[in-house]
């Protein structure tokens, strides 16, 4: 699906050479002695929506501002649409930037706000009026042209900010936590709307957020950032299923983490042990040597519960139910395992798991998972 779409959006030109709308090479940014970005490489193909996800202070906003030209990198190169813009000031870069605070001009009407960029370029008045009408139609705000920003709701203001950016047909669209100030329902509506708009226009977009759910909802790819570096850049599914670092594992979704020791590695199967149980992992070859200490992690949806020990040779550990949260289609169980780890299990409410309803806090259960769903990280 993603690759089909990529082709239809012309991600590759006739020679098969990748076309990147954004290309960052070996980018450094420091403020005095504090390093905000370190040796950062990033390429974004045409038409992709890439999300920069990370905790506050991870450098994601710094990175966005470097691309926008509002900051200068300490070293490294920024290319936009194939052109080296490292030394080009913001007002020459033709990028669309949308802010968390909307940043609409309070003394201008919606129409004046949207037409601002064209007026700054000296475009004829009747052309501006026509394009403003088109841009407002794009975000369904035709009726609000003569209002002032203070007379609009948060969602409407952000749509004006979008129209104001898109009217210039920018090479890239940069969104800096655009929906952080909106309530949940409106935020979800805006996410879908922006995603649809972005797909239809085929505009290369970078989206900054600290909200993992938003990142998973909206992105083609997500770059998880931490302390000025990109920890992993991949599709939402890959990030969740195959996190490369423990930071990514913990930042996106929940997991149960067991501290263990590698027993031996044979034919891609890693045997693990801790005081309470043994386990095996398969799938990705992690390259751990026997004797090394590791953290074995399992996602909540990859574990199943049973009242008896499933079999002698399984990835399983006994535990005591400490909490159950019923959520309709699934139930979240919190289980204190004999290995000392509190496991979180998301169990589908089906015929097979009906027995769990009869269990209550303090009852003993077995937690089981498959070797291929065991994720290993150095301890």
């Amino acid at each position, binding site marked *: 699906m993603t690759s089909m779409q990529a082709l239809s959006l012309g991600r590759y030109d006739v020679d098969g050479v990748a076309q990147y709308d954004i290309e960052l090479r070996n980018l450094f940014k420091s403020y005095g002695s504090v390093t905000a970005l370190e040796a950062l490489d990033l390429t974004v193909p045409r038409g992709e929506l890439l999300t920069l996800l990370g905790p506050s202070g991870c450098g994601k906003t710094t990175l966005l501002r470097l691309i926008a030209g509002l900051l200068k990198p300490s070293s490294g190169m920024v290319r936009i649409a194939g052109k080296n813009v490292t030394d080009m000031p913001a007002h020459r870069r033709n990028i669309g930037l949308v802010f968390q605070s909307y940043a609409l001009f309070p003394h201008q009407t919606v129409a004046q706000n949207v037409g601002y960029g064209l007026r700054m*370029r000296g475009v004829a008045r009747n052309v501006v009026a026509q394009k403003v009408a088109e841009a407002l139609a794009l975000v369904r705000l035709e009726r609000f042209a003569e209002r002032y920003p203070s007379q609009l709701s948060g969602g409407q203001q952000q749509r004006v900010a979008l129209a104001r950016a898109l009217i210039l047909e920018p090479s890239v669209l940069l969104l800096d936590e655009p929906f952080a100030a909106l309530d949940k329902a409106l935020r979800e509506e805006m996410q879908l709307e922006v995603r649809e708009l972005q797909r239809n226009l085929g505009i290369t977009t970078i989206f900054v957020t600290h909200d993992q759910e938003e990142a998973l909802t909206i992105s083609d790819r997500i770059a998880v950032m931490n302390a000025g570096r990109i920890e992993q850049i991949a599709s939402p599914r890959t990030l969740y299923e195959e996190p490369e670092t423990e930071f990514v594992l913990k930042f996106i979704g929940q997991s149960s983490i067991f501290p263990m020791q590698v027993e031996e590695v044979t034919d891609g199967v890693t045997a693990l042990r801790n005081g309470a149980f043994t386990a095996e992992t398969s799938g990705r070859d992690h390259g751990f040597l026997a004797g090394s200490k590791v953290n074995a992690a399992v996602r909540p949806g990859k574990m199943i519960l049973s009242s008896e020990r499933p079999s002698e040779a399984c990835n399983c550990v006994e535990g005591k139910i400490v909490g159950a949260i019923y959520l309709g289609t699934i139930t979240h169980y919190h289980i204190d395992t004999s290995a000392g780890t509190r496991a979180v299990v998301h169990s589908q409410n089906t015929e097979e798991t009906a027995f769990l309803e009869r269990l209550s806090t303090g009852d003993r259960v077995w937690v089981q998972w498959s070797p291929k769903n065991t994720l290993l990280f150095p301890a």
Partner: protein
Amino acid sequence: MGAMVAKEYASVPGLRRRIYAPFSEVIGWIERRPYAFLLLLLPSFLFMMFCFVLPMLLLLRESFFVEGDAARSFTLAQYAHFLGSAHYRGVLWNSMRLALYVTLVALVIGYPLAYGMARLGGRWRAVILVAVVSPLMVSVVIRTFGWQILLRNSGPINTTLLSLGLIDEPLMLLFSPAGVVIGLVHAYLPFMVLPLAAAIERINPALEEASRTLGASAFQLFRTVILPLSLPGIGAGAALVFTASISAYVIPMLLGGERVQVMPTLVTQQVLVLLDWSFGAAIATILTMVTLIILVIYGIVAARFFQRYRIEAK
């Protein structure tokens, strides 16, 4: 309520109870009356009444008499005398023009300083603040004598310009309107910079970034975003500087001398030299009224303007 308060204080042990006891009735009395807090305004109210409003009214009354008239009959003769004289009208016009120049120069010099103060970080902000406020820390007389030395024909400004060959004879800076404007701008610059800096600080920096990324040059950014949004600060600063300048006395006297007559020097002359209290009072009243009228008109125009631009004058 009063009983409750009394009981409450009765529970305070020992010495404190004995201290509070006589006041418990008073505290209770105040708490029973929701507007009793207005009592707190009483000291400042009395001060303003006796030290400001009353003298102003006495001054106003004095302006309706003629000095030496034993009958003390009410007359508008003083006002007719002032308005009928081309010389006095000229002094009024002179005062207004001078105050306007001071306001404009202070705005042009003060705007970059205010912008720097609002947008630069800690240390630079402090440096500008101290530099701008410094004139307020030196006595006006000492400061103005300093300007006399700088501005006189043999002063450093003229000798420097002469030695550079930029002028052939000394510029008439001291005892000229130019000297007065320089002295007044120096004195009242803080009144322009501080409200202006406060207004600029309230402009969301993201608006500047938005303007830049939308393709605005530095000048376009200033013209379309910063200037209109800082209008409330310009309004407040200009009103303060204008009012202070038009009523300034020491600086016009020391830097303007005989050649630059303004309303306050005229008042002093009438009252202290000619001992004509009534005419002095009339001139003072005219100055006050003119200033007030200008400020009211200015306020109405400014309010219209802010409304048009949807600016909240906070």
